[in-house]
């Protein structure tokens, strides 16, 4: 028994859940029913796969099993009038409800996955939802993230986030929102919240707020994949290309972000020969092409910042003044405290530690609950020789991280000061 390879159900879940849910919503015409039946299908998989092995097309297996679970449920609840339409729709999917999903050719069901995910992206990011609700719904339905994870990445309480997601789904359902890709004329307005959502998924994958690995490769890769689909759909939209460039240039650092023992390495200490040159080249080429359109936006500016880092041989030869200038431009588009915090770090390099610390401390009210604020402040205080204050700031940062790798990093920084 111990010779059996362990089934990486978590990995399969993260890879497949968004695609399965997106397809099931199209097939069922009901978001909640799709989510529930996909969860049921994964529960069946958790029981069966360790015994019989993972099927060759796990996503197809999940999709078909979920669809059959939904059909069972609709039959049980057939007295409920509102679900008759969904049941009728299901019958049109050419499949026998009693077939064995593992033996069936599943290609035609999972073929249209990219389109389904794009439909779901535009549904989740519907402009009649608040931006917070848009991003939360995207992470829940397309990223397959649990509500507590989403709550942490938004810096809000879990029950607030749960309510936000329930209300958003309910609003779309009550208003009879269609599952479609917007017409060409609507696309620019519908795109902005989609870009924001994809970038947040990428960041959640890049630095997970919980879990054992610093990087959640699947979410980052998924965000990059969605970014590519968007660039294909909207080749004339420089911000879509800017987002993809930003994600590629950031993701290129992944091999250098963690040491052999799994601990985190800061940008300034990373071995840049380990950066992924292919991703840097692809991201830089995309960025050059979209900057030529001369329609700057927040995604392109952030990509330009990442490109400045990618073009520097090391931390000390980085053009920090250029980075401060780019952050000034970004603040004009996005006047948020987190952007201001990143700008403050660049200020500390371009204009000295005191100037950087002053810029950081100006944000103490807005970012009191933000882990990075306390970590950045602690680092600057330590470099300035304010040992006691730095230790207190590391304690504040440690109280706000759930990522073991990040925690270890902070603890090491703190212990050096003792």
């Amino acid at each position: 028994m111990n010779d059996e390879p362990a089934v990486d159900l978590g990995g399969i879940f993260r890879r497949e859940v968004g695609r399965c849910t997106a397809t099931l919503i199209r097939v069922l015409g009901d978001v909640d029913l799709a989510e529930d039946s996909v969860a049921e299908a994964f529960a069946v998989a958790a029981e069966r796969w360790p015994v019989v092995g993972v099927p060759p097309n796990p996503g197809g297996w999940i999709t078909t099993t979920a669809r059959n679970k939904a059909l069972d449920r609709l039959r049980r609840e057939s007295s409920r009038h509102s679900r008759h339409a969904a049941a009728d729709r299901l019958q049109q999917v050419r499949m026998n409800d009693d077939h064995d999903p593992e033996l069936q050719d599943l290609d035609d069901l999972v073929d249209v996955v990219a389109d389904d995910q794009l439909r779901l992206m535009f549904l989740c990011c519907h402009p009649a939802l608040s931006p917070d609700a848009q991003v939360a719904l995207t992470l829940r339905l397309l990223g397959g993230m649990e509500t507590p994870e989403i709550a942490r990445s938004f810096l809000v309480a879990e029950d607030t986030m749960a309510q936000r997601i329930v209300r958003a789904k309910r609003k779309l359902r009550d208003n009879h929102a269609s599952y479609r890709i917007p017409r060409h004329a609507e696309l620019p307005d519908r795109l902005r919240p989609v870009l924001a959502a994809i970038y947040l998924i990428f960041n959640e994958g890049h630095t997970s707020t919980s879990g054992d690995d610093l990087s959640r490769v699947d979410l980052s890769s998924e965000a990059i994949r969605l970014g590519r689909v968007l660039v294909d759909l909207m080749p004339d939209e420089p911000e879509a290309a800017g987002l993809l460039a930003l994600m590629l240039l950031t993701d290129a650092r992944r091999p250098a972000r963690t040491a052999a023992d799994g601990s985190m390495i800061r940008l300034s200490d990373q071995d840049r020969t380990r950066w992924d040159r292919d991703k840097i080249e692809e991201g830089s080429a995309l960025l050059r092409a979209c900057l030529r359109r001369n329609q700057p936006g927040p995604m392109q500016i952030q990509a330009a910042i990442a490109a400045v880092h990618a073009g520097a041989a090391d931390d000390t030869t980085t053009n920090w003044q250029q980075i401060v200038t780019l952050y000034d431009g970004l603040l004009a588009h996005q006047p948020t405290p987190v952007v201001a915090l990143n700008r403050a770090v660049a200020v500390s390099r371009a204009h000295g530690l005191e100037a950087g610390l002053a810029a950081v401390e100006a944000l103490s009210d807005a970012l009191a609950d933000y882990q990075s604020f306390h970590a950045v402040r602690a680092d600057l205080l330590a470099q300035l020789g304010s040992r006691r204050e730095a230790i207190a700031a590391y304690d504040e940062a440690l109280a706000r991280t759930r990522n073991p790798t990040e925690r270890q990093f902070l603890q090491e920084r703190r212990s050096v000061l003792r």
Partner: protein
Amino acid sequence: MAQYLLSVWHDEEYVVDFSGEDMQRLGAQVGAFNEELTAAGAWVFGGGLQPASSATVLRGDNGSVSMTDGPYAETKEQMGGFWVIEANDFDAALEWTRKATLACEGPVELRPFQSE
């Protein structure tokens, strides 16, 4: 097809004066919008309301009914009129609402009716 309520919101006391220049313009715009709704088969019902001070609230409790003068919600903003429309989906309803707010030059709230 689904039904939606498009409600128009005003300050509490507005003057219904059809001879004024603004009302002339609004009346023409809303009339054109109503015609467009009707031509598209989206029109169910609609109309403007007299000011909220003309309202009366009745409250039934255990078989007895009390009556008070004035609108139910004592807020500055009151509903000044509404449409009930039929639309294919949310986006179609939003498109009608976009036209409605431009026609009546005031905020319009879109709400879906409960499904049967």
